[in-house]
């Protein structure tokens, strides 16, 4: 293949008639740049999603952020209340954490697996400064004193934790920070139960208060979190394009080259840790005040993995990606998978939509649908002939979906255990499906759809919550294998050494 034979063109739609004017207007694009642009173009999501992405990119960053913040602020007015509001609060806390983690992991490229300890530090710090834990009457500082104090403390803690990053790189840093995270949980669990409360945690924490007011409703915390998240994102956006932000990315791409460009590598790394810790501690203070209590288990690995799942899904390195990913993950995790009212339609709708968007040409789509339907009826008939009790249970869905599936999907009389195994098998098949190519993918698709329906009807429709943790693990694996830059991130090319 030779690129020289063809004159490198600009945009794909530029015809031969325009080529002359383009050349007259400016220098022609070089081969390298053309390749880079082509690669950049491929980064957009397929079809209309990509169009929307391109459209959004033409608008500046702050109108986009303002619109997103306004949309968030309007949500409670259109009837978000009670349980949904709590989901919103949790999602915003995780989003704030993901945005902070993005500084360390996305920009500075330091894999910090103890990040949740900073969240815990913030929550415990706020709890100690706003409850009866210390001294005879306790300390009850107003929020405008305690929150900055805790954030400064977290920054110092972040510097201390970051110290190993001066000597350790990559994997070693990951282990040490993971241990620090575990050590935090062990510490709060075991050391000085009179102050830290041991496994019983600290209860009776003050609300966020100051200047004669205090936040006592969930709606109040929701608005506070929306404001804090938008403000943090704005500050981080300015930081990203600043000298420090550029230094972080330089250190991520190549510490040696960065050092040669007189960037103080160690100091820059420590700064990333300190900034990340401050954001996490801020999230922690609001979390503690809203929950009125903190427990060591609130800051264990599952939360860390949740934050990572959000960051990876959205795209490490992009502020908007981190926030969006975390919000999506948390809304699915906490909201949809807990209240199964209409999730059946969502489930089947998603499958049909994915097939419609992804499967081309339509003959292949028709083949897959026909094969799935045929497989279902055949499997049902065969199993029924062997053992009547294996199909004795009806589908879990009610209404027209349930009756349509009655003779298609196999539901045993006692569906729990087969449903569980089916679910684990389904996740494994999904991971495999991402990997195989071409004809095999089409063939594998048929049993996967059928299995998905089986799992849904036997198990998930009644208890969707059981799948939550597994789904988070699956997101990490599938995203890393299929689209490591996440939904909104930009691809990083790293030359193998």
């Amino acid at each position: 293949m030779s690129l020289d034979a063809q004159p490198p063109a600009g945009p794909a739609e530029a015809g031969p008639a325009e080529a002359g004017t383009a050349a007259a207007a400016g220098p022609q694009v070089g081969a390298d740049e053309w390749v880079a642009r082509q690669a950049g173009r491929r980064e957009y999501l397929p079809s209309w999603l990509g169009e929307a992405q391109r459209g959004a990119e033409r608008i500046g960053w702050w109108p986009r952020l303002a619109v997103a913040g306004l949309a968030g602020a309007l949500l409670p007015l259109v009837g978000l209340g009670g349980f949904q509001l709590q989901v919103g609060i949790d999602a915003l806390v995780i989003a704030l954490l993901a945005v902070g983690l993005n500084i360390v992991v996305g920009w500075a490229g330091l894999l910090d697996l103890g990040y949740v300890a900073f969240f815990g530090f913030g929550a415990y710090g706020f709890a100690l400064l706003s409850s009866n834990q210390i001294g005879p009457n306790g300390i009850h500082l107003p929020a405008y004193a305690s929150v900055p104090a805790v954030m400064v403390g977290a920054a110092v803690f972040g510097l201390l934790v970051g110290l190993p990053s001066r000597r350790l790189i990559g994997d070693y840093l990951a282990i040490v920070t993971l241990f620090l995270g575990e050590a935090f949980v062990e510490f709060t669990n075991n050391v000085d139960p009179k102050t830290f409360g041991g496994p019983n945690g600290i209860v009776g924490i003050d609300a966020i208060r100051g200047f004669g007011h205090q936040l006592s409703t969930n709606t109040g915390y929701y608005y506070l979190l929306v404001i804090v998240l938008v403000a943090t994102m704005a500050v981080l956006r300015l930081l990203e394009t600043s000298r420090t932000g550029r230094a972080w990315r330089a250190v991520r791409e190549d510490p040696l080259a960065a050092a040669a460009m007189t960037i103080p590598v160690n100091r820059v790394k420590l700064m990333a840790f300190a900034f990340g810790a401050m954001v996490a501690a801020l999230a922690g203070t609001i979390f503690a005040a809203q929950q009125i209590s903190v427990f060591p288990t609130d800051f264990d690995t599952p939360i860390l993995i949740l934050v990572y799942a959000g960051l990876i899904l959205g795209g490490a390195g992009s502020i908007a990606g981190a926030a969006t990913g975390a919000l999506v993950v948390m809304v699915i995790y906490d909201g949809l998978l807990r209240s199964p009212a209409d999730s059946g339609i969502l489930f089947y709708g998603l499958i049909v939509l994915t097939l419609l968007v992804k499967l081309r040409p339509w003959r292949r789509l028709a083949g897959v649908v026909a094969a799935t339907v045929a497989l279902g009826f055949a499997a049902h008939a065969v199993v029924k002939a062997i053992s009547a009790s294996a199909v004795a249970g009806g589908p879990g869905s009610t209404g027209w979906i349930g009756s349509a599936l009655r003779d298609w999907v196999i539901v045993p009389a006692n569906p729990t255990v087969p449903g569980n195994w089916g679910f684990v098998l389904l996740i494994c098949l999904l991971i495999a499906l991402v990997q195989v190519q071409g004809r095999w993918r089409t063939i594998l698709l048929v049993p996967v759809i059928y299995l998905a329906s089986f799992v849904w009807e036997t198990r998930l429709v009644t208890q969707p919550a059981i799948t939550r943790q597994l789904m988070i693990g699956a997101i990490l694996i599938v995203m890393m294998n299929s689209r490591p830059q996440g939904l909104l991130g930009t691809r990083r090319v790293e030359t193998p050494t």
Partner: protein
Amino acid sequence: MAFFFQELVNGLTTGALYALVALGFSMVYGVLKLLNFAHGDLYMVGAFIGYFVIQWFGGPKGLTIPVPLLLLTMFVLAAVLVGGLGVAIERFAYRPLRNAPRIAPLITAIGISFFLENAALLLFGAQYRVYNTPDFISASSGITIGSVTIDSLQITVLVLGIALMLGLRQLVSRTKLGRQMRAVAADREAAEMLGINVNLTIALTFFIGSALAGVAGVMAGLLFNQVSNTIGFTAGLKAFTAAVVGGIGSLPGAVLGGLLIGLAESFIIGYVSSLYANLLVFGLLIAVMLVRPSGLLGQAQLQKV
């Protein structure tokens, strides 16, 4: 003094167990330069396989086959099944990421660890499963030297552990597969040019490493009696500590690290308090990493420019 020697024996036994997990972990790191966070969860799967084998043969009280045969079945089945699981994980989760940025396989490994842990929760429930080892291996049988007792279970674990370690040493240093493994670990591209089937070598490394974790899982079930979906995480952390303290990628280092961690833990529990055992083990790790990041027996890595 008797207490000291008793703790020494206990520490050596758990140390042998940690060493087996750490060996697999270190081997995988050697060929792929990947921290396999899912390694501890493979150990958990092995422990569950052992439990189901006991149940399959009539439960701890009414065994239908002799005890040595039962132990053999448990170890072989756990090794083969967990080894297969390790190969599958490598094929579908790590292989596509060979040339991805370093952070990608690490995050995938965390995802797999989380996935395995929660799959076990879903399939086997949250309650502890109990091996009830004393019902079929008497705790009083064994060797008594002075006032120190080494019961037959500890002997089994120690003998099997040492045999596996020596076998692995022979495999790595003497056989063709071992040479291929070392070649891939040293330089994957050069190994490929010399006609070594890199994919097969890595898959076999994963098989052996995971099988060792499976065997260690069964040992843990026999020794500690309790199995649940969360045991993998703690064991994984201990194995990291062992591998890192000994020098990651170095097999004698992993054994040394495992024994050190086992002894340290045993003496801390015996002489200080069980509350601080984990905290002190983690502290040990952080101290070693700061003073000597390449571990006790590891070689300092020179960075190529």
